[in-house]
């Protein structure tokens, strides 16, 4: 049914008021509930010169489209009959995980549609399989995903280590797959820097393990999954794999877009569950109760007591014992425009689906190159961006600056802000009998030369 022109115009006006780029249409899924401004469509271009407001709106659109329920049987495809917040595997969960692409022996991975990955034997014993859906195992054989990018593990207030998950979409996979970059031999043959096309996307999620005795009033505020949670050996504690319920506490998206000047740029949006840590201002004011009734996932309210003497953001790399709850605080405030926009989107989620868990997530920042002509990264805005669940111990971090350093496995060429290629031929956590792999396709070039 065609809408009368006046109503269509009214909808557009509403969208503009809400800070949404009109270029990204709001196709109305065939669904009963109201979900104005929510779309499964992924934006790939910015029509106007970006500013912080448009970048933040863009970040929320990415968030919405990637957390949209996925179409069963296909990878990376939204289910247009559903709306965000309804049951089902979400789009980014159907993307490829690194361990599906980068095998310890460097062998060629299966095609995009095919699931399958080696899994730790502990998980096999627990009943997992290579699976026909993703994810089946939270962790993988590639790297210790209990470690943050800059080092150190994060322990929640229940003494459970936070686990991380990474996936990437088809444009990223295709470039790696078609160029043979899934092993070192393929990267040894590189002749120039990597350049992903607009629409390339990567995602990192941070999960905490839910405790059986946590009240439903707490748990319902999380996007939850039941997974096989693999925890590598730490000290004298052997590796384990348990089937557990986990709660999403952090979510980070890297998305490549086309700018108005036709250049392609990365935009990086980072989100957290709202119960992670106290708001920025009250974090530094011991003695003041923040008024948050529910427990924080990563911060103890006892630290508000005068004289509590809590050591904030102390990493295990700084000697804090693994498994001791981390007292995490937000050192970089939620970006001001994101702070204004968050309630708008949270309300949309709330209105779209009753009890929608996504209403309990907030954007921390969407970082974008504010002036691509500025060397070398294009003047990232905001200058700093930190997800408390992923960059807990980096005082002033920046997504774009950090990812700018990404190189291939030989550190010879830029890999266009993606660290994926550096994961080729990983050391298996549980190497097959006989020790580490010795595959010919996993032999590095000689050490990199100075420029």
């Amino acid at each position, binding site marked *: 049914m065609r809408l009368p022109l006046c109503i269509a115009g009214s909808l557009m006006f509403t969208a503009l008021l809400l800070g949404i780029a009109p270029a990204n249409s709001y196709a109305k899924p065939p669904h009963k509930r109201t979900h104005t401004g929510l779309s499964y469509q992924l934006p790939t271009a910015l029509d106007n010169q970006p500013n912080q407001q448009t970048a933040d709106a863009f970040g929320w659109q990415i968030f919405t489209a990637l957390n949209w329920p996925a179409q069963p049987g296909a990878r990376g495809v939204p289910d247009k009959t559903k709306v965000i917040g309804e049951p089902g595997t979400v789009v980014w969960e159907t993307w490829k995980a690194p361990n599906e692409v980068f095998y310890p022996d460097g062998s060629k991975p299966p095609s995009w549609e095919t699931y399958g990955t080696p899994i730790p034997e502990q998980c096999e014993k627990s009943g997992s399989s290579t699976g026909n859906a993703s994810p089946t195992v939270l962790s993988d054989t590639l790297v210790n995903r209990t470690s943050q990018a800059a080092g150190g593990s994060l322990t929640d207030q229940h003494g459970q280590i936070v686990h991380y998950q990474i996936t990437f979409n088809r444009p990223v996979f295709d470039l790696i797959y078609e160029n043979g970059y899934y092993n070192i031999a393929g990267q040894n043959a590189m002749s120039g820097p990597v350049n992903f096309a607009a629409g390339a996307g990567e995602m990192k999620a941070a999960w905490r393990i839910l405790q059986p005795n946590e009240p439903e009033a707490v748990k319902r505020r999380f996007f939850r999954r039941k997974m096989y949670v693999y925890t590598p050996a730490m000290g004298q504690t052997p590796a384990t794999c348990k089937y557990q319920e986990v709660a999403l506490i952090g979510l980070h998206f890297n998305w490549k877009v086309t700018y108005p000047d036709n250049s392609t740029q990365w935009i990086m949006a980072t989100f957290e569950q709202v119960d992670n840590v106290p708001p920025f201002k009250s974090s530094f004011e011991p003695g003041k109760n923040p008024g948050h009734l529910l427990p924080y996932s990563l911060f103890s309210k006892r630290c508000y007591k005068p004289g509590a003497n809590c050591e904030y953001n102390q*990493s295990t790399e700084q000697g804090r014992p693994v498994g001791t709850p981390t007292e995490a605080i937000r050192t970089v405030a939620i970006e001001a425009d994101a702070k204004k926009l968050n309630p708008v989107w949270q309300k949309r989620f709330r209105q779209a689906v009753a009890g929608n868990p996504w209403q309990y997530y907030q954007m921390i920042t969407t970082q974008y190159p504010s002036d691509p002509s500025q060397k070398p990264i294009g003047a990232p805005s905001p*200058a*700093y961006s930190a997800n408390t669940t992923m960059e807990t111990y980096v005082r002033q971090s920046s997504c774009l600056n950090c990812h700018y350093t990404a190189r291939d496995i030989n*550190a010879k060429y830029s890999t266009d802000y993606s660290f994926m290629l550096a994961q080729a031929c990983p050391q298996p956590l549980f190497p097959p009998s006989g020790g580490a792999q010795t595959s010919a396709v996993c032999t590095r070039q000689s050490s990199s030369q100075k420029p």
Partner: protein
Amino acid sequence: MSILDFPRVNFRGIFKTNPCTANNDDVMPSVVTRDTNDLGLDLQGKSDNSALTYLNESVEMHNYDDPPGAKKFMRSGWNPSGDHFTSFENTTVQSVVYSAGCSAVASDQDALVGVGFEIIGSPNPSGSRSSGPIICDLDPTGLVSTQLFVGGIHLFHQDGQGNKTTLFKALHDTRGFQNWLNFCSTLPETGTQYSGEQNFVGIGCVWQFVVPQDKLPAYADCNLDSPGLEALLSAAQQAGGLAIRFRCYEVEPGYTDDYLSKTAEEQGFPAPNPAYGYLIGTIGIWNADEPQSETAGRKLEAHYRTADPSQYIAPDDPDQGRPSMSWSAGPGQTATTVSGCIYPWMGAPALIGNAVALIQPDSPVISLDILESFPKYGFRNPNGPVLNAPPEGFDHPKKKAYVGEVELAVIPSGGGAPIPVADIEYGYNDYRSYEDFGGIVDLPFDANKIPRETLANGQLILRGKTDSPLNAGIALIKETIIRVVTDDRTAYIAPERTDYPLRVKVYQRGGPTTQDVTLYLKEYKTVIQLKGNDTCASPRNVYRTNQSVDSRTEPITVADNPPQCPPSQPAPNRLIFPDSVTIPAGTTGWITIPVSPNIAQDPNGGTAVFAFQQDENYTYGTIPPAAPGGQPTLGMAGVPMWSTKNYCSVRVFGSEDFSAMYQKPGGLQWNDVYEHALRYYYLLFPAMSVYIPLNYASSITSPYSASLIKQRLNTPDQPAFYSTLNMPVTRTLSPARVKLILDFIDQSQSNQNA
């Protein structure tokens, strides 16, 4: 040849620079231990988080209070988030000068006019986005020389959407050095006190670097039909290459200190706060036998007090030789008379900057570079810097300070009254021409009245005309007959190095000398301080040392500059060098002076300024001894050598022994490496850790970080040390600490592979 020859291409635009200020000891001396990579007293014993919080705190400043308590600075300065990248913004070619009186000022006259011009960084071997030019002091904790590392130059067309089409690009890793850093480059309007945010906005300086001809593209490869570009490249190919000389002035941070503090409080970090200033420059010809770091020719400079009273510009001046100069908004306006600069680090007489002259061989024209000579009048932001839109204030009307009617004159070789040569329009009546022609004026003279011999053998001066309403008859600047230059303006010397070659060259009236020249070599602590007791604080401590934050609203007292500062027990020299060197008459090449680190007596190293003086008894920047044998007094009364002279700054890296750290069980420990080599940068250069967090072993030893660090971390003996890609950009990490980091990475990788 030099940029004063023809052809020339002139440009103007906006200068943007983004240095990190957290370790500037003139801002907060107790944050760092001077001349070292060690943290100062205020940070010692603090955890990383506490130290960062402390650095970002706002404190009241005691000597800029008007009213008291109103002014706040952050402990880490005006730009703790700076990354040192520097660029030309909105910079375009304004004119092409083919010969005296023949020029193009519009694109329909020459297609080169209006095209964009920028300096660029070294090419990134990884193929990622290129780097940018990097500004950094030889010693960020002191007062020595600032360098601008450049990877090349770029001329381009730019469309409305900002897309650039290259017309001409030349890649060459090189450096420019500050020349004539002065606080009087912009003067306040009469009756006002505003000197800009952070009180350094009056500064201006000139930079020059060259691109040798073998790095230049052929004109046929340039995508532009321009007779000016063709002539320039043709001349450059036949000479040594291109010289790029430019001035930046009125460089001002985008945010006020108060706003910066507010961002730190609200966001958890201070907003990046690059500074913006005016930019005017020239691309010209460089001959291989000319200095690279400054313009060749006959140099006129603000004259300084010497031991010989006859050398005073104004010997009758009651203030021991400072020429009293006046400026105003214009003729008939109330004039301000000073005997020097009224701003911090008052150095007199630095009101009028240097000039360089070339008598054109083929025509009765003297080309005079007065780019840096005459100050601007009034600041573009009289009410303070703008927020969020830094270039906005650049539309403010510009004018030169009126210093009277000025002329070029020559004092005959036999002495006598100066003979007027030509009137000088220094930009007071036509600021736009000053900008559009790179601050160079081509002055015709009457060869019948002033024979070339008189000019060739006399002494050039710029003076107020005898009938000028202001400064009548006063010599503003004066030719230095013997000019000493060095291109080794900064040197990084490893502790084990011996006989490091510092090169100097002497000219007489721009040509070969006709008499032997003896240079007396002196080492200074900084450009304004004789060597003294190194425990003394900087004279410009704006905080009171060893006091709590709350008490820093008091004025500076003698306690801030303790009386033991005068060199009652002078620190040993950092360098071992000859007392003097005599250069035979007629010498035209570079003379090498070997210097060696004095590690035996000064094992910690540090920075020093090395001056080549013609006057054995003169001491820059100090009040001379009241009586023979008396001690000079540290102070600001003399002329800072940075205002006039070509000098060399040296950084001697300390001789450090970390061998005990290698002997520990398991080899090098992360805590040792962090404490001795990385923590300083993690705390004071947060811009580095947004790329690779420096506070975690796993961060710097991850495969990609480790490889990147190995590529970028260099020592002074490696060419890559001088590219814009080198890390750390401050180049203050000693070879021993570089080795410590690299060995730790190797050890970690070896352990991982075991």
